[in-house]
């Protein structure tokens, strides 16, 4: 499918999502319906995004962003789904583990480094750092006077 067709198809399926043509087609959805939206994208036979390349957490100063890169193993098209979590104090979002088992590790990594809590994740623990680590290192306001040199 070409990018124009992708945008057309996705906007007809997800009327609330904003599609944009960048390097890849970028779809912006609300954090509350992330699971529903991606379920629609995965189960539609024309889109069939069954392979989740990666999930990226982004610290956007006042909020958190999440970027899901999705690829279809049969049609071989790729899109990026973006969402924003407004609550910085207690960030929470629905886990995509029911759709993609790769989220088991990937969401644990984001929990470890950003402190975003994924609801309904089967095993929400830190993955790289030790359990008694204080703070979330990839946040922009993380302070570590010993190991991070400020120039």
């Amino acid at each position, binding site marked *: 499918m070409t990018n124009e067709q992708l945008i057309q198809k996705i906007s007809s399926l997800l009327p609330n999502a904003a599609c944009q043509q960048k*390097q890849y087609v970028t779809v912006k959805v609300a954090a509350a319906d992330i699971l529903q939206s991606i379920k629609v994208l995965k189960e539609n036979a024309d889109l069939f995004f069954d392979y989740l390349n990666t999930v990226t957490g982004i610290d956007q100063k006042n909020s958190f962003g999440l970027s899901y890169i999705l690829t279809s193993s049969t049609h071989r098209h790729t899109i990026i789904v973006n969402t924003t979590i407004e609550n910085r104090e207690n960030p929470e979002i629905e886990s995509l583990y029911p759709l993609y088992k790769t989220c088991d590790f990937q969401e644990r990594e984001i929990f470890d*480094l950003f402190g975003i809590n994924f609801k309904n994740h089967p095993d929400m623990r830190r993955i790289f750092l030790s359990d008694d680590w204080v703070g979330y290192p990839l946040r922009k306001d993380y302070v570590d006077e010993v190991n991070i040199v400020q120039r």
Partner: protein
Amino acid sequence: MEQTTTKREDISSIDYQEFVINMGPQHPSTHGVLRLMLKLKGEIVEVVQPHCGYIHRGIEKMCEHITYPQTIHLTDRLDYLSAHMNNEAVCLLVENALQIEVPERVKYIRTILDELTRLASHQLWWCAFGMDMGALTTFFYGLRDREKILDIFEKTTGSRLIQSFNVPGGLMNDIHKDFQKEVKEFIKYFRKILPEYDQLLTGNVIFQQRTKDIGILTKEDAINFGVTGPSGRGSGFSCDVRKIAPYSAYPYVKFEEKLQTKGDTFSRYMVRMHEMWESMNILEQLIDNIPEGTHAVKMKPIIKLPEGEYYQRVEASRGEFGVHVISDGNKTPYRFKLRSPNFMNLSVMHHISRNHKIADLIAISGSLDLVIPDIDR
């Protein structure tokens, strides 16, 4: 007095005890500092829980404080056996974002070095895999031939393992004048040697019994877990980035994406053995046709990417390596995410080694070909 000896009939009637043991972080067959926490019932593995992070260096955080050309040197330190591909991912990302067209010569040399890296990586995997299973001879065979590739690297790039030969806009230097001759000599040599690998290990009855029908990963699960590279292709998941989104000189060459359907340990082994032949085919198509030209285009001294979101993927030796950059227009990336193939390949470990013997776990982890610095980042 308490009875200390157990009668013979008592042993046959007891239930197998449940144990929790740690495999690693210092264990020869985990190839680095990976710790697998195993719950065993007798000799049967019930739960595998990987504990990572022993060499977590925070490379993603470090990259937020350094410029784009500097990040290249850190991507070497992820999967050190596919260092050249990792470099290339960052360079391609910067070049695509700035819309720079690199000379044809650069594309050819990059692809040749990619395939040489893949060959060297698969040779090391082959020899270490054999050694994990108790076949010590493979280790000497593999390292002997890998040395020849490393010598070629040393002559052209200046270093043997982590080269950092790619820079945004091209290559750090032109190739050595003997490069083409030596690569052709190596291919001629290795075409004769590779059948020996098969004679030594592939056809071995003990090896086949230890790998066939062990650790079966279905195609659906491979896609769902995001298992890419030879491990995914062993399950029939067509995930070769060289075919899906061709980059550098891959659009110009003809090669096959080797797929197996069974998804067991032996299939993953066979995919890599076939890939070595395919790598040599690609090399032969390119090595005589390197176009003349410069080895790099002139870049601005300070590279700033336009504001936006970029994702670049390449096929590393172990799967899809991706760089996801969020730029805010500065000379340093705002967010630098690395999609490392080994991290996703590790996540499937519990799923495929459940209900196998503990010795099969060694075979399975060997066939997934894990490189630990790539997992921990």
